[in-house]
């Protein structure tokens, strides 16, 4: 098993799948300014995905392109976090998903920018600037919705509660994580969890929201390629042209 490839493809798939989900919302936002903001985040994520896929292709050494990796792998080969493939739902659900991930990726890239792998460190360095902005945006909306009206409070709380079960696997270290950490390439997810939880607590407090129960039964599987039912539909749509017209330039 090529651990560096595995490690990189996870990051690529995370960015690609969440960018895809946000892309579904382009033109349908609740306020024009927020439509633009969500598309901004989508654009940054697609950009990050491209950088990671390009590097993954290089590490893999099998003459694949970024698009081969994004468009020609199937469900079981995808390694994005389950959280990120969850449907957009209403704006509160979208914000809940975004905030939980932004707080995670912010902490994660803070670690990865110090990676001994120069390429990963460079991608993280660029990503952290973007994610800083994403996290500010999603935190502000968690606060606005949480401390807005009774309706918005209920909606964002429900969104966070139902997505909470996908947060456990974000911090699970498997063989690849351990290997990468040992080589000074990867990030210690235990440290990421501490930083993440601090941020979540801080924002929830300001938003007058309640932290979901720590007894929540966590869903997991993405690190082994076992996903929720949603990913299959994302890929069916995303990969449609590449699969219908194999080997074309677009």
């Amino acid at each position: 098993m090529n651990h560096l490839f595995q490690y990189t493809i996870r990051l690529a798939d995370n960015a690609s799948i969440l960018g895809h989900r946000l892309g579904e919302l382009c033109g349908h936002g609740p306020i024009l300014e927020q439509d633009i903001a969500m598309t901004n985040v989508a654009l940054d994520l697609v950009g990050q995905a491209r950088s990671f896929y390009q590097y993954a292709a290089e590490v893999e050494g099998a003459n694949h392109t970024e698009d081969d990796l994004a468009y020609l792998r199937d469900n079981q080969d995808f390694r994005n976090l389950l959280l990120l493939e969850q449907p957009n739902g209403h704006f509160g659900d979208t914000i809940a998903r975004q905030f939980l991930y932004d707080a995670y990726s912010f902490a994660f890239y803070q670690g990865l920018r110090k990676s001994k792998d120069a390429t990963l460190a460079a991608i993280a360095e660029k990503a952290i600037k973007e994610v800083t902005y994403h996290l500010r945006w999603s935190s502000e909306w968690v606060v606005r919705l949480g401390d807005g009206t009774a309706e918005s409070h209920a909606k964002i709380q429900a969104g966070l509660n139902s997505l909470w079960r996908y947060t456990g696997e974000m911090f699970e270290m498997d063989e690849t994580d351990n290997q990468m950490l040992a080589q000074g390439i990867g990030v210690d997810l235990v440290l990421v969890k501490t930083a993440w939880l601090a941020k979540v607590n801080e924002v929830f407090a300001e938003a007058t929201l309640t932290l979901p129960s720590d007894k929540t039964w966590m869903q997991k599987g993405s690190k082994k390629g076992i996903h929720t039912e949603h990913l299959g539909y994302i890929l069916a749509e995303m990969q449609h042209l590449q699969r219908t017209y194999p080997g074309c330039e677009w």
Partner: protein
Amino acid sequence: MTQAQFQARIDADIKIEPKDWMPEAYRKTLIRQISQHAHSEIVGMLPEGNWITRAPSLRRKAILLAKIQDEAGHGLYLYSAAETLGKTRESMIDDLHTGKAKYSSIFNYPTLSWADMGSVGWLVDGAAIMNQVALCRTSYGPYARAMVRICKEESFHQRQGYEVIMTLCRGTAAQKQMAQESLNRWWWPALMMFGPKDEDSPNTEQAMKWRIKRFTNDELRQRFIDATVPQAEFLGLTIPDPDLKWNEERQHYDSGNINWEEFYQVIAGNGPCNTARLAARQKAHDEGEWVREAAMAYSKKQEQRNKQVA
């Protein structure tokens, strides 16, 4: 100021600014035109947004996202320009939803293949540019300035769209066929974007006199045809107009008759996607209501808290 003094400013090519006196009809015409233009940018996001999740490469996906985001930005500038005339964005949006305000009829056509992402950029943004370049010199200052910003981005969109089509034309036979089929569907609706024939466009004369418009519909349409035909030839695509030919004497292309019945039907709400487009806008608006309320409630609370601190 009198009507005559106002007209003298216009004739001297002096820009009219929000605080200047203006005839009510001038104000009304501008609100109608600018808000219609803003709505077109926003509704225009939908047919292209339709292909974001199916974009065939990550690079194309990023370009498409950025393009649609630009259109949202155009909508914002234009709503702001229209607001300087005394109408709020909310009331303009209400007019869109109730059908009182129109938007460009082109966006009532469906995007059915990836090639349509090329055709929309090449032909629809291309046709829009013809109109918009002329509008950079329109008499109302805020509108003219918004158009200058917008035009730079539109010509970029046009080139990107052309590049999508070019890639298809240089690809496999199936891809080239996809490009041709798309051109067949978009050519005539693109020509209709310039509006009715001059003799059927009663508002043109006054709009020209006020220098809101600088060229007639038919002049701009001709300009578009003359610019676009060679581009299609370069790609090896056939324009779906058997009557199209170069007129040496006029130094312009002659072209066939537009199906005006179709044009008026689409404007009247009977295009393939009128209902779907409006429903999508209405849905986004309705589903966003609790979000806008929450944002307002929160900012009120913040204000209160700041007062208590002070």
